[in-house]
């Protein structure tokens, strides 16, 4: 979770595994939108000497649909290139790394950024074209420890690049902001706080967040809103369809890879191997036999996955795993129009006062961000729209949004009354939660918003 190792094929390919995608109006610069896509899930901080990095042979993309047809109108592409300063040492660094050009830093990555405007309904403009916005931008090193990276925050700050075209970009290691009790939830849907009610009961316990000591690799871009909307404007009316952006991330590999001796070369077109819009969609909604296919397809192809949203497996499991706790959910047999709206079309106006993020009738898994809704800067609610905070998920997704609780509650029936007033949610919906509050070090108030990565010296046990 939210999409860490979520499908059979991509679980074998961490550098291409899009683990989380975030999109929100930047709280410290509300004229911009920040989009973050994370890769290389579950990084243990001490993982040297070849510390974690992006794949030189992977094409990383961020897609934006600004007219509701579910096809990307704007695509940002990121390609990486690893360089060695000294091939005659096994060390990642041969002394303290004091800057992004420090000769002590042996193995480093540079990257390029390309922007493509799609003029046709074509999902596959992944093969070049567009405009090169920047080349040879430096990533920061991984956070190794006090001897190697003594001033890590300075290195990370130097790796925030402001492009002449108006975008700000960062690519490198960060603290993974996602939180969930992985060990419990995949032990037959256990929630420790209410496991005394589980089909296989044990005394109630306290949730554990295994991600709180793990890192991730982040690609983040901050873009002026006017560069993303269909008419080049900065919408101020939340009810306007111009204000809604569909956003998702994806990673692609070349169709053919030829290994010859120590040489590895790619050939052929880019083939998508990972994508992510809504958190947990492929993880929890799509069954394992269809997960790899989902990753290879585009949001515009998602009609074939509607059936999994309309009749989600998890909604059928909850009454079984927690006997007697979900009688109303167990008896509900209608298609889940609430989940269909949240995940596949956006929520139309008139359902949640002052809010809509409808992109149209075509089903597609995308984050849907209404850019006319200002960021909540005072006491934001991690439960987002469900918690009365219209700037949070499913209005895009902020780094601290508790998407596990939001989606668990929604699947458990909390959002059915929005579309079917005859339904009364079970009392147990209130007890369905992640029960986790991440520490403040997970995030920061400025771009790229995810906190300083854990260093391997001080976090050696992960």
């Amino acid at each position, binding site marked *: 979770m939210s999409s860490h190792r979520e499908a059979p094929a991509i679980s074998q390919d961490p550098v291409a595994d899009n683990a989380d995608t975030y999109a929100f109006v930047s709280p410290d610069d509300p004229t911009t939108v920040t989009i973050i896509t994370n890769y290389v899930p579950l990084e243990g901080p001490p993982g040297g000497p070849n510390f974690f990095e992006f794949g030189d042979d992977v094409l990383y993309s961020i897609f934006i649909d600004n007219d509701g047809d579910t096809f990307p109108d704007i695509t940002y592409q990121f390609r990486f290139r690893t360089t060695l300063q000294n091939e005659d040492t096994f060390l990642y660094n041969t002394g303290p790394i004091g800057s992004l050009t420090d000769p002590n830093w042996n193995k480093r990555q540079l990257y390029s950024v390309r922007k493509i405007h799609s003029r046709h309904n074509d999902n596959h403009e992944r093969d070049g074209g567009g405009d090169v916005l920047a080349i040879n931008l430096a990533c920061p090193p991984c956070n190794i420890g006090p001897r190697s990276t003594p001033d890590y925050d300075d290195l990370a700050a130097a790796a925030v690049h402001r492009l002449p075209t108006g975008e700000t970009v960062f690519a490198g290691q960060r603290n993974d902001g996602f939180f969930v009790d992985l060990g419990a939830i995949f032990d037959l849907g256990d929630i420790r706080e209410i496991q005394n009610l589980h089909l296989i009961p044990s005394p109630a316990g306290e949730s554990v967040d295994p991600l709180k000591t793990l890192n991730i690799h982040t690609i983040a871009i901050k873009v002026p809103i006017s560069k993303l909307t269909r008419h080049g404007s900065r919408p101020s009316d939340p009810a306007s369809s111009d204000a809604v952006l569909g956003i998702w991330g994806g990673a692609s590999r070349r169709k*053919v890879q*030829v290994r*010859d001796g120590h040489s590895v070369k790619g*050939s052929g077109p880019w083939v998508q191997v990972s994508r992510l819009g809504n958190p947990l969609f492929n993880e929890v909604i799509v069954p394992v036999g269809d997960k790899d296919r989902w990753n290879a397809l585009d949001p515009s192809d998602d009609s074939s996955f509607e059936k999994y949203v309309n009749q989600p497996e998890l909604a059928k499991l909850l009454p079984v795993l927690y006997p007697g706790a979900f009688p109303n959910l167990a008896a509900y047999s209608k298609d889940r129009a609430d989940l269909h709206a949240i995940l596949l079309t956006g929520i139309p106006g008139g359902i949640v006062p002052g809010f809509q993020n409808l992109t149209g009738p075509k089903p597609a898994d995308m984050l849907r961000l209404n850019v006319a809704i200002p960021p909540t800067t005072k006491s934001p609610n991690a439960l987002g729209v469900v918690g009365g905070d219209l700037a949070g998920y499913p209005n895009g997704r902020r780094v601290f949004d508790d998407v596990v609780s939001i989606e668990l509650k929604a699947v458990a029936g909390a959002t059915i009354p929005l579309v079917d007033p005859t339904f009364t949610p079970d009392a147990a919906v209130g007890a369905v939660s992640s029960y986790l509050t991440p520490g403040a070090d997970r995030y920061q108030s400025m771009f790229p918003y995810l906190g300083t990565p854990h260093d391997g010296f001080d976090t050696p046990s992960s």
Partner: protein
Amino acid sequence: MERLSRRSFVKIAGAATGAAALASAPPIARAAMGEEGAQPTEATAGVPEEPVVAYVRDAQRGEVTVTSGTAEHTYRDRALVQRLLRAAGRKGVS
């Protein structure tokens, strides 16, 4: 065209004519050369389940490598290389 070892393919390639090379080429080579209609293969006989891959290993030397299953064979066939390069949309080498 014959299967070649690294030491032997030079002299064999030098002796073979284009027609002779084509006549002895495996189906994948003929398909790549646009001859797949001449000797159709049975879909159920000897068709590998995995992709058969041919790639130009060295255009200047006219080398093509064909992989099928866990086997790999390298051939020298300048005409085939030329055709593959043309099929790839790139100008052939002389």
